[in-house]
Structures are given as C-alpha cells and as structure tokens.
C-alpha cells in the first residue's frame, strides 16, 4: 500500500476535525455567537492552509483525490463563501429566533463536502462529496422549523436531491460498466480505446448524460430547476445565500472537472446537449423571473439564469484550443456570481423581518419587492450597494458581473457558438428589466422601509459592493489566477 499523503487534503482534513470538535464544544457553550466565531476561525485556518498550497499539486488515496490549481482555486472560493455564509447568519438566526449551534457545524460539514467535490478525481469521491455537501444543506433548508415554508423547502430539497443523486449514481454505474473503472484518468484511456463505435461507448455516453442530469439538478439548470424557487424562498435567507453560491460552485467544479477530464471524447454528443440546456436555462430563468414579486423568488430565478450563463463556459469543453480559457472564464464567473450573490442576499436579510404585520397583507416580512420602496432615500449606502449588485447581475460595467459575462461570451464566440452567445446577450437584456425593477422601486418609489443594521451584515454587503466594483476595474490578477488554475488540467 502506498503511503498516504495527507497534505493533499489538509485543508479539508483540518476543517473536518474542526467541525467535529465544534459539534462537541457547542454542547457546552451557551452563547452561540462564540460557536459562530469558532466556525469562522476554522474556515479561516483552512483558507490559510489552502492559500499556502497555491501552486502545489499531487494525488493521494490511490489517485482518488487530487490537489491542483483548480482545486485550490475552488476551495479558496468555497471557504470564502463559507465565511460569508457565517457572516450573514450571525445576526440573522438570532433575529429570526432560530439560533442553534448546529447551524454552523452543518455549514462546515457542507463546506467539507464541497471542497471534496473540487478535489475528486474519482467518480466514487464525486458521489461521496455530493452526499456530504447535500445532506447538511437539506437540514439547513429546514432549519427554521416549525415554520411551514422552511420545512417544505427542506423536504422538497431532500426528495429532489435524493432523486438527482440517484441519477448520478446510475450514471456512475453505467460509466463503470462501460470502462471498468471509476477513476477519471482511467475513463479517458478506456474511452479512447473504445471509441470505435462499440456498445460500451453508448453506455458511456448515457452514463455521462445521467451524471450531467444529476449535477444539473444541483446547479439548478433547466429543466431540472423545479425545486429551486420553492426551496430558495422557503429556506432561511442566510441558508439560501450559502446554498445558492456554495452548491453552485461545487456542482460546477465537479462538472468542469469530470467532463473536461473524463469525457472529452464524447464532446460531439454532449456539447449540443449542454448548449441546449444552457440556452433553455438562460431563457426560462430570465423570463419567469420577470413575473416575480417576491425578492427571494426573483433571486432564485436569477440564480437559475446564471447557471445557464456558467454552463456556457462548458459548451466548448471538447475544443482543445478553447477549453482552457473557457473553463477559466467559468471559474471567474463563479467568483463574480458568488460575490454578487452574497451581497444581494445580505441586502435581502437586512430588510427581512422576523414577524410580519398581518394587517398589511402582502409584503409582511419585508420580502416583497414593493417593500424596497424608499430605500434610496432612507438608506443611501444600502441602496447603492443593492444597485451595484443588480447591475452586476445584469452585467453592466463597471461591475464584476460585466467582466464575468465578457469572459463567458468570449468562450462562446471563440468556440463559434454564435447563436448561444446571441441568446446569452438577449436574455441579459431581459434580465435588465427585472433587476432594474428593484432599482426603480428603491429609488423612484416612496416608502418607509425598515432595515436591520448589524455589523457583520453591513460588512458583508459593503465589502461585496466595493469588491464588485474594484475587482471589475482590475480583473487581471484574479483572471490570471483562474487561468493558472486550469492550466494543469489540460
């Protein structure tokens, strides 16, 4: 047996142990704020180790996990997302009366699963990671129990998540049947050997398509998106924010690695499928979002639409000259989406109220778009931040979302998917309509909004807004890192 190299998964390992200990420590800590800080400390330590590993590569556990630029980049992003997730939850759970220490432990475990996803070099590990990241999220979605909506969200997410995991497992089984291996490297050589039109190639194609379906559920791509609006709306906002960013990053990390590494020989079959899914996701997500009046649902559909944009980075995954930059573009867009997403949800949380006023009817809990009226006047900084996020989600300069989309469309054009690029820009135009509606409400309608001001929350939206603008003006270092990260993949 080869010696195990634990340094490959050191950040993950540290975080796992930390989370286990936190579970115990929390039992004896009365003040749950301390649990939150400890959880954040764990993430920070893990982040420190991750950053110290930039440039390091290696594999371990019989080539089942891998450490490379890609995993380091994604892990760093996931850990930062975790930190944002805790910052959002810190005051929120207190205010909503759902403060329990398990929140932070579950969040840490979920991050562990996500990080494992980024490091997986074997389909079994992909499956393991998928479960590890999903199960804590199911619980977190239902965290506001006995709130009916939250319970519904948890159950829905659990059922559909389990269903989608089934697809992944079946896909892995078929791939194993076709290639007699689950290791990504092994699949490539087996697929190349079998690429002479035998039946195993068919199995391989079906298997990879099923994996695509399963992961499509996780990242909320159309037509596997049905759970998203209800779950995003029902789950506590802080959870939704973390879920929207974290699960998407992990899902896309797995998609990017599995498909570009294991299935490049299937590109001629898979590329059209991904292109259609991407186009559908952009169209459906953006068009249904127009009709939403609830900010959480709006952001849910926006999240669906953005899955479509990120999928665009994937479409040319079989083209040798293009794939590196397009995957880098995908990574960059994930960063921009995560940052904008956390900012926008932070604003949502700032306006959300624990108890509604039944007499006013709709908009009781500060979650209707109409509740945003008058923020521009009452809370200029908050409104300005939200405006930045909305513009970033639309893709208007000078925000990170614009630079991200610029890179993504470049991937589509360089891969000569002109129609897809046109669909992408036209749906961006549609999205401008509903994102601007939020801005219109904030600045151009009169109202008496009630907001909450908490230090960590303010820090989150403030930092996110500033970074969204500044990084868009100097995107080179980040993009450089992203492209260095994918270099080793190909």
């Amino acid at each position, binding site marked *: 047996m080869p010696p195990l190299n634990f340094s490959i998964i050191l950040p993950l390992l540290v975080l796992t142990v930390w989370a286990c200990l936190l579970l115990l420590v929390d039992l004896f800590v009365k003040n749950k704020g301390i649990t939150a800080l400890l959880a954040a400390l764990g993430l920070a330590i893990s982040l420190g180790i991750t950053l110290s590993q930039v440039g390091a590569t290696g594999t371990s556990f019989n080539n089942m996990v891998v450490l490379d630029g890609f995993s380091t980049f994604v892990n760093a992003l996931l850990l930062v997302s975790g930190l944002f997730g805790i910052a959002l939850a810190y005051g929120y759970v207190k205010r909503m009366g759902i403060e329990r220490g398990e929140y932070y432990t579950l969040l840490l475990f979920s991050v562990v699963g996500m990080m494992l996803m980024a490091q997986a070099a074997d389909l079994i590990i992909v499956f393991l990671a998928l479960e590890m990241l999903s199960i804590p999220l199911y619980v977190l979605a239902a965290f506001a129990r006995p709130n009916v909506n939250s319970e519904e969200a948890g159950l829905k997410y659990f059922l559909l998540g389990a269903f989608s995991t089934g697809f992944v497992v079946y896909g892995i089984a078929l791939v194993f049947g076709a290639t007699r291996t689950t290791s990504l490297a092994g699949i490539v050589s087996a697929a190349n050997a079998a690429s002479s039109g035998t039946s195993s190639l068919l199995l391989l194609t079906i298997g990879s398509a099923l994996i695509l379906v399963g992961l499509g559920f996780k990242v909320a791509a159309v037509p596997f998106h049905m759970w998203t609006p209800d779950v995003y709306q029902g789950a506590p906002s802080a959870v939704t924010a973390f879920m929207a960013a974290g699960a998407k990053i992990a899902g896309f990390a797995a998609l990017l690695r599995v498909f570009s590494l294991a299935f490049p020989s299937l590109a001629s079959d898979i590329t059209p499928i991904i292109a259609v899914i991407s186009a559908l996701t952009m169209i459906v997500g953006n068009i249904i979002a127009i009709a939403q009046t609830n900010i959480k649902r709006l952001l849910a559909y926006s999240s669906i639409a953005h899955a479509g944009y990120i999928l665009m980075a994937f479409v040319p995954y079989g083209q040798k000259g293009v794939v*590196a*930059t397009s995957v*880098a573009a995908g990574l960059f867009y994930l960063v921009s989406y995560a940052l904008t997403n956390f900012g926008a949800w932070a604003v949502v949380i700032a306006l959300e109220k624990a108890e509604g006023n039944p007499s006013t009817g709709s908009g009781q809990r500060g979650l209707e778009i109409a509740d945003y009226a008058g923020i*521009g*006047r009452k809370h*200029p900084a908050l409104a300005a931040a939200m405006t930045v996020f909305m*513009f970033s989600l639309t893709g*208007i*300069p*000078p925000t990170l979302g*614009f630079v991200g989309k*610029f890179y993504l*469309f*470049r991937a589509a*054009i*360089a891969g000569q998917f*002109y129609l897809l*690029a*046109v669909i992408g*820009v*036209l749906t*961006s*135009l549609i999205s*401008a*309509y509903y994102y*601007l509606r939020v801005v*219109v409400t904030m*600045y*151009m309608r009169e109202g008496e909004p009630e907001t909450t001001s908490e230090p960590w929350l303010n820090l989150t939206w403030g930092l996110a807004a500033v970074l969204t603008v500044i990084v868009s003006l100097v*995107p*080179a270092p980040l*993009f*450089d890192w992203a*492209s260095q990260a994918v270099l080793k993949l190909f």
Partner: protein
Amino acid sequence: MEFILQPLTLMTFFPLLGVLVLLFIPGDKKNALRWTALIASLITFLISIWVLTMFNASNPDLQLVAKYNWITVAGWNIQYYLGIDGLSILLVLLTTFLSPISILSTWTAVEERVKEFLLFFLLLEVGMTGVFLAQDLFLFYIFWEFTLVPMYFLIGIWGGPRRIYAALKFFLYTMAGSILMLLAILWLGIYQGTFSVPDLIAKGGIDPHTQLWLFIAFAAAFAIKVPMWPLHSWLPDAHVEAPTAGSVILAGVLLKMGTYGFLRFNLTLFPQAAVQAAPVIAVLAVIGIIYGAAVSYAQADIKKLVAYSSVSHLGFVMLGLFALNPQGIQGGILQMINHGLSTGALFLLVGMIYEQTHTREFKVYGGLWKVTPIFGTIFLIVSLSSMGLPGLNGFVGEFTILLGAFGSTVLNSPWYAGFAALGVIMAAVYILYMFQKMFMGPEGSIVEEVRKHGHALRDLNWREIVTIVPLLIFIFWIGLYPAPFFHLMAPSVDKLTAAFQAAALAMR
C-alpha cells in the same frame, strides 16, 4: 501619478474628484453642493481648453495618447488607451462645455435630492468624455454602458410623471443595441487579437461578409442611440420626462455618442461594409429627416416637438457621415455640434419657462413676446439657428452636408440631398409654427394663470442669461466664421476618407 497627470486622463476623471467632495457635503447644504459641482465641471472645461491648446490641428492622428496595458492575461490584450483627434476634439469640448451650463440650469429647477442629482451628473460627464476619448473597444464599451446608469437615474428620479416608464425604456432600448455590439467587439478581440482601434484599423483584412455582420452589430448600438428611424421611439419619451439638465445633455451629448460611434468605429473598422451599407443608411437617414419634421409639426407639447426635431436633425448628420466624402463627414461633425448647441439651448429655454408655468402645452401659451421680451429674443435666435437660417450655425452644417450628399460618389444620386433639402423647409414650418404659437397672437391663458398665483410671468434673470449666452456666442460664431472649426477636424477627416477611397476601389 504619471498616470493621472496625463491631460486626457485628467480631463476624463476630474469630475470624479467633484463626486468625492460632494460625498462629504451634507445633503441639506444645497448651494454648497451646487457650487462644488459647478466648479468641478468648470475646471474640467478649463482642462479641455488646455487640451485644445496642446492639440495640433494639422496632425490627423491620435494625439495626447495615454496608453497602458490593462488586462493582458490569458490571451487578452486590453489596454487603457485614450487619445484625441480631429474627429473627437469638438465633441469632447461640447461635452465639457455643456456640462457646467446644464448644472447651472438646475440651480432652482432641482430642489429635491440635490446631492444625488449632482453626483449622477458628474458621473455622467465622466462617462461621456470617456466615450469620446477611448481608443480601446473594451474601455469604450465600459464608458458607453456606464453613461446609461446615471442618465437612467436622472430621468427616473427627477423626471416627469411617466418617468419610470421613460427611464426603463431608455435603458432597455440602448442596452438592446449595445449588447449586440458587445458580441462584435468580442469577435474582433478574439479573431483580430486586439481591442485597440488603431491596431484594428491597421490590421484590417476582415472578409466583406463578416464585415457586414460586424457592421450591423455595431450599427445596432449606434442607430438606437442616434436615434435613427425606425428605432427612435425611446427618444420622445426620454426627452419629455427628463429634467431640463437631463434633456440638454441627452440631446446635446448622448445622441452624439451614436453618430460619433458610426464615425469612429463603423466607418474606420469596416470600410467596405460601410460603402455597401451607405445607401441603406442614407435612405433611413432621409426618412428620419422627413418623418421627424412631419411628426414635429403634429406635436402639442414643446419638448416633444424639439425631441422629434432631433430625429430630423440627426438624420442630417447620418446622411452627411454616409456620404463618405470629406464635405459630408465634416458637415456631419459640425452638425453634431450645432445640434448640441441649438437643441441644448432650446431645451434650456423650455426648461426656464416650464419652471414658472409647469406646462409645456402650446395651447396655453401665446403672446409671450410682450411679456418676456429677452426670453422671446433669445428663443427666436435659437429657433432660427435650429431651422438653419444663413448666418447662424445650423445653416453651415446642413449646407455642407447637402453639398456632400450631392457630390457623394458612394451614394451617387442627387435624390438623397433633394429629399433632405425638403427637411430644411419643413423645419422652418414647425419651428416657426412653435414660435408663433408661443410668442405671437393674444396673450395665452397661462399668463393669467401664473398671475393668479400672485406673481407675474418674469423674464429671464441673470443666472439664466449667463447660462444661455455662451451658447448664443457659439451659435453666431459657427454661423459667421466656421473656418476654425473645420480646420480642427479637416486632417483627420481627410485621412478617414482616404481609407474609403481605397476600400471603394478594392471593391470594384
């Protein structure tokens, strides 16, 4: 430090300093806010004069270039690249010139949320100046889209009753065009390997079929902005709902960004496609001229009339540009300036009377000549300038354009100029009609209405006269002695048209 001290960089970003200062002034100190913004924009204007003194008119190339690598990773070659030449210098001056004037015009018109208004206004100035100076397509696109945001807020927050609708329409229309341009920009960046406009021109060699597609994508963005018929329907709404300063800048500068875009990008980057598309665009331009004039005549709202007259006037500009000869293009550029001056002045004047009467309906006006003689005189001069009376600026521009269109070898038909000349006559009709309704005849009901509220309709005060007189100076100057203006742009235009001759020859 070296970066910021370059004249063009300094000129573009100086208003940001004003923004910074504004942020630290409390919102209820309205006059302090106004003075800060005014001084910031005045200094920007002074910087632009400084730039003008350094500008060598006989050099057709880009001057005072500021060029730095910006994003040069992973196959990108994006530069921070500013430069000025004969095509843009007048438009830059127009921008920096109209900005303080517009700020001055808001002195009493904007009382609500003054701080935000001025913030957005200065940001808008940054964007506009940047659009005219950027020589890298990525940078250009950022400035181009960025102008949308402040203008959207200016219309949406301080506009008239249908402001939200107008603001959204403005935003979505403009964005619809510009995202198609974005794709074309990306295509150029990927397949030509650079975003820098001079490099792209030097490289050339795009096959004519692709050129045409790229031309269309760029034209989509610019035609909406100009706006060319039939893409003009956002303009009347935006103009009518926008606050006065917004209208002035919208008509004076933002629309010019469209025509300038055609000039700077469509003509230079895709010369063969431009030659091919010239007749189509010229037809649309002529339709725009006549349509705009005809619809203007039918309006009951002063601002709407001026808005539709913009469609007509910008049709002239487009016709001049796509005559593709030196006269046409020079006339086009001059007409851009003229339109900025006279339409800007018209909107200012309408704003001044609106501030007192709160209505823009013709039918309530009448007989103002006696009540407000100074206002009447200035209004008359500006109107005559707008309809193209010889001796005033409009005439010079329109006449040069018509000459260019007549002599154009690309259009090769006198009918374009013939029909366009019809537009000049129609302009006389609707402008004089407006003037007559407002100033002649018996006293309109509004005079009495205002009097009922305790104070009579007053004539222009000093601030208003100071606001409008600089515009009048240029209206006369260009009308009587346009040579210096032509002199500034001639070498660059000659260089541009020389490229066309080559392209047209290559096509035969």
